[in-house]
């Protein structure tokens, strides 16, 4: 497969097809492990399948340690999966040769979580923004034009003096706009935004979210937006996937998932979303304790030890992710078909 073929192949509506994707990380072996021939490992992501249409935005929600970042990195071929496949425009990412990978990099970009260390402190902002254009071998004649468009997109076009500044001279909100511009400057079809606003003050978050929304609407950008806060996901994403300990527990249109969460874990997440309302409910969350050690997940349903509904059946067998109504999938024995 050559770079040209990847760049031009346009078939059906599906941009990204994830099939049975898994990733396990090896842990260091103790002497006992070595003697017994054991290889302890952590299943960070296990058996995830979903598709992303062109121009669609999917939110991945879950607590820290649920594997959402690992998943995001696999979608961009920054981590190789242990099993399963990610197909981008019909091509398996693990089959890409060097030129094809370059073409892929131009079409798929990452927005980092922490703008304070995502930029090289020795580079001016201008240099940071030109870097992806050079790296993906965009013709030099197009650079200034693309750069201008990216700056307009992130609303930094009225602050051109910032281009010759260094990262430490910018505020957090400005830095995150630069990080976004750096991802958008090559005009990708797909971005993964990993907690893009969690390091920012609430008052400047809105600006970043608006830029993402606008890019979705005007560039037809497909995005995977990783967050632990459903309120942020709601603002940017049409579809939401809830992850718990490496697997998908719920998947559906964001509006439905928030209005009527089906999986008990999603219900707890919805209830935990902070609201600026003094009369909000202080009811305890329908969830017990904290996330268990990823190395020793409970048998059966991985959520069973925190679930208020769990019974013996849940602890014996792992519920499959099944379609309960058109467009909605849930992995829970307690949720009837809708």
């Amino acid at each position, binding site marked *: 497969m050559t770079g040209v073929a990847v760049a031009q192949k346009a078939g059906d509506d599906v941009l990204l097809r994830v099939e049975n994707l898994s990733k396990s990380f090896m842990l260091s072996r103790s002497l006992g492990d070595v003697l017994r021939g054991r290889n302890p490992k952590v299943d960070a992501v296990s058996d995830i399948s979903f598709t992303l249409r062109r121009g669609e935005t999917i939110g991945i929600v879950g*607590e820290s340690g649920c594997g959402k970042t690992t998943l995001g990195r696999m979608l961009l071929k920054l981590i190789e999966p242990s099993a399963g496949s990610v197909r981008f425009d019909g091509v398996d990412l693990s089959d890409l040769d060097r030129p094809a990978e370059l073409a892929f990099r131009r079409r798929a970009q990452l927005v980092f979580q922490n703008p304070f260390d995502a930029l090289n402190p020795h580079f001016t902002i201008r240099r940071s923004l030109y870097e992806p254009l050079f790296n993906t071998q965009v013709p030099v004649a197009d650079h200034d034009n693309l750069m201008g468009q990216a700056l307009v997109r992130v609303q930094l076009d009225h602050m051109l003096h910032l281009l010759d500044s260094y990262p430490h001279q910018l505020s*957090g909100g400005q830095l995150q706009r630069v990080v976004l511009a750096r991802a958008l400057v090559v005009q990708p079809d797909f971005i993964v935004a990993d907690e893009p606003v969690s390091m920012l003050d609430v008052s400047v*978050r809105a600006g970043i979210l608006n830029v993402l929304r606008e890019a979705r609407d005007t560039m037809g950008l497909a995005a995977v937006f990783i967050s*632990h806060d*459903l309120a*942020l996901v*709601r603002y940017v994403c049409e579809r939401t996937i809830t992850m718990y300990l490496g697997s998908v527990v719920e998947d559906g249109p964001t509006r439905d998932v928030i209005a009527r969460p089906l999986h008990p874990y999603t219900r707890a997440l919805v209830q935990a979303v*902070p609201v600026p309302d*003094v009369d909000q409910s202080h009811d305890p969350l329908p969830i017990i304790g904290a996330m268990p050690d990823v190395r020793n997940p409970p048998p059966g349903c991985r959520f069973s030890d925190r679930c208020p509904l769990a019974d013996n059946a849940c602890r014996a067998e792992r519920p499959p992710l099944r379609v309960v109504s058109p467009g909605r999938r849930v992995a829970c024995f307690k949720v009837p078909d809708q």
Partner: protein
Amino acid sequence: MLLSIKDLQIHYKTPMGPVKAVDGISFDVPEGKVVGVVGESGFGKTTAVRSILRVMPTVASFAGGEIIFDGKDILKLSDRQMNDLRWRDIAYIPQSAMNALDPVWRVGDQIVEVLTKRGGMPKAEARTRSEQLFAMVGLEANRLRDYPHQFSGGMRQRASIALALALNPRLVIADEPVTALDVIIQRQVLDTFAKLQREFGLSVILVTHDISVVAYVCDHVVVMYAGKVVEKGPARDVLTHPSHAYTIGLYNAFPELSADHDCELSPIEGGPPLLLNTPPGCRFRPRCPFALEICKTDPPEVKVGPDHFAQCHRAHEGASLRQLAADPAVWRRVVTA
């Protein structure tokens, strides 16, 4: 009143001249209440609350005002008297609890050390007390033997709350206690604060940039902007009737779960001002969609409700400003202007 801060000023010494990080702030902390201090990063919240413990970087100095704790002016105490006050009467939970615990010590031993060395308690008693403290913050006693790296983020945060409570302080200062936490853990930590306040009458100063945290646990709120208090009052009044444009803006920028799907959020455009050689007048003026000519003069403190004050020339127009501010276009205009 347990704590009263009156016209406090703290300056940072820089080669370009003094930076007025805290510029004449006043607020009170009543006994048994949770007071939220809200504002963006770099607005002097941390400087202000750390000064209550007189813990400051060497370049910072008090330039005026007083901090009255339990009838005594903290700024007039000797170093020794001040040291007696720290932890025993006023405890501090630093911004990043992840780094507040010593990684090479068991968590339990760190609590016991405080109880024996600063509290003068015999070791056996200190062990029982540390179990009690763990129970108070909702941690299991068998985790006392763990090292900090064996704890999750939320557990570490709760352990540092337990550590702060060790000597029964009357006031706890918590600096951004939930900022780096997931929503579920955030909720659990806030519930811990609410429970401690309810059951033990703890007084808390809670520093945050997130008004939802204020809405969830605080009785009173102090909104800071660029070294000044721009609005303060009971949390309910300030959140339901925000009267300073900055507070209104904070509210409108908040992504709500229940809001209409297509409604647009309004960020507060622009950035915080440099606090060096600040011109007179309202500090929020360059970012304020409602600024007038008169805003170039220092704004008065306007009483907009019982105990509810806003430092704004147009504070009495609160109701109509709130209505205008609901339109995102109003906030966008500020950049183009």
